[in-house]
């Protein structure tokens, strides 16, 4: 315990033996850390080495050592490939749409739920809106396909009822992105609202009481008390979402798209899957992975930097 009182400056001057004794004291904690460390080395850091195949003519049979270096050939091929450029563009567009809807919907939902005073009703609504979070995109995709089916789908029934013409919605390029954005919001918004509900619950009730005494209406209380109170939460979530900008929703898209909508719906992840796993052009697909990773990394750093300047609340 006496080690606690040693100041930082003194720590640096400690002889090696004392340092080692300090480390030895925590041997059990290091041992507990070991399995997780081994896991990240195997499944997170070894793949970083695997990135080198993007710069090789990688051949599965010859492996790393037997494959020749290819320089930037595959990156050049990518930028000349119409399909890659298309997937890149779609990723950004779909992500931006989702960034807006997937970011605003949960905040609005949390604010609305917070205004419900009947506890059992609020609880019922919450349980109901969380529901889709607990099924996979395979399940949800199957459900959506049923709802949107041309002959028997409910959505087409509603369209007809309003005097519209029924259509095979999932193969129509004009609707595909809208379908992605709406179904993503339906599946995730309830769950994403929890974090804002938690932040709202943590606000000081006295401020509300003061606002009521001052005669602030409900809308005013939301605008001037609730919203400012959860700003830092909103910013952190926004940063996290910006960091995911290069991932437009692989699980969702791969379960909903089809060749008819590649033009508007193919994203980097689905492109990488098709090229790399289905067509086995591993080096080309890995090059796309590298581009995706670097831009994604830059996005997180940028968003974090901005958040620190705006609100002094970066996440690392």
């Amino acid at each position, binding site marked *: 315990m006496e080690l606690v009182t040693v100041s930082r400056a003194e720590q640096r001057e400690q002889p090696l033996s004392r340092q080692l004794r300090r480390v030895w004291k925590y041997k059990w904690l290091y041992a507990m850390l070991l399995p997780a460390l081994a896991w990240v080395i195997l499944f997170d850091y070894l793949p970083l080495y695997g990135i080198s195949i993007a710069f090789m003519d990688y051949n599965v049979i010859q492996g790393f050592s037997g494959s020749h270096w290819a320089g930037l050939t595959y990156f050049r091929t990518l930028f000349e490939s119409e399909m890659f450029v298309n997937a890149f563009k779609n990723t950004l567009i779909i992500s931006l749409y989702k960034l807006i809807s997937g970011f605003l919907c949960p905040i609005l939902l949390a604010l609305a739920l917070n205004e419900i005073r009947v506890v059992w009703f609020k609880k019922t609504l919450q349980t109901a809106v969380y529901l889709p979070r607990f099924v996979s995109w395979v399940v949800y995709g199957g459900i959506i396909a049923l709802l949107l089916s041309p002959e028997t789908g409910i959505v087409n029934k509603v369209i007809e009822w309003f005097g519209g013409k029924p259509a095979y919605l999932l193969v129509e390029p004009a609707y595909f992105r809208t379908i992605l954005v709406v179904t993503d919001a339906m599946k995730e918004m309830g769950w994403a609202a929890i974090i804002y509900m938690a932040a709202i619950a943590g606000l000081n009730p006295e401020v509300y009481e003061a606002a009521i005494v001052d005669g602030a209406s409900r809308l005013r209380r939301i605008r001037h008390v609730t919203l400012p109170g959860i700003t830092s939460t909103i910013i952190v979530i926004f940063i996290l979402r910006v960091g995911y900008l290069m991932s437009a929703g692989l699980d969702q898209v791969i379960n909903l798209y089809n060749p008819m909508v590649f033009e508007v719906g193919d994203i980097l992840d689905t492109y990488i899957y098709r090229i790399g796993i289905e067509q086995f052009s*591993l080096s080309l697909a890995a090059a796309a992975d590298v581009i995706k990773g670097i831009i994604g990394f830059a996005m997180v750093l940028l968003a974090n930097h901005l958040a620190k300047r705006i609100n002094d609340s970066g996440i690392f």
Partner: protein
Amino acid sequence: MKLTRGEKAFGAANYILLTLLTVVIVIPFWYVISVSVTPYSVFSAKNGMVLFPTSFSFDYYAYLLKKGSLIYGAYGVTLRNTAGGVLLALLLTAMAAYALAEKRLPGRRFLLLIFVFTMLFKGGMIPTYITIKQLGLLNTDYVLILVMAFSAFNMIIMKTFFEGIPESLRESAAIDGASELRILRSIVIPISMPAIASVGLLYMVTYWNDFFNALLYVTDWHKAPVQLVLRTIVASSSLPPELLEAAGRTPPPTIGIQMAAIVIVALPMLILYPFIQKYFEQGMMIGSVKG
């Protein structure tokens, strides 16, 4: 508290909109169940409008759950992966979180950085695939258990929780002569049950619902989890030949089969989650303390 007319209208509109939203979110699930128990003749006669089943038939379920069906094996794989995976994941996550929650641990900042970095930059799908292949894990029984067994994000949720445990509690036990292991077993773990439950349940949903890792790493149908089998049933309108073979007859109309399969796969989580919902909420809240 007196409400103005505007506020009353606002309150009423809020109730109505939220109820509508909830209906829009829940109806699809209800509809799927309804279609899965409606005979095809009724389904097509009503042109798909079977929001409330008028006649029941469990033919689709009987067909899918016929003896020797591929679904049984796949369900077994999913159950095994989920049970084994959650145990392993909790062990890895809790141990690392506990160690890193100790503020005096020499090298703590560097070690933490090693974990945080994995959330920021990833090797990507193909480099990871190559790594799994080189490690000889492709198509093994335990590949899916292993690849999902740790998430730095969940580790940080748990670490935040452990950091909240009062120091004095552990110190007094240490003074009483309890060993590190003993402190962990009889003090830390019991008070950490809410965090362990919520993180464990997050892992559970991940394991149960995963299909993409299976799509990448498992090609042998006998090792495929149930989500992957479901995908072949719903993604292509034609059934996988294995499933037909197992059933040994021509399939009834596929839409009902698809919906029955969806119900079979999704039901366990849908039944469970209202009971475990509070742990999920707790987990999110522990996580949000950090923000």
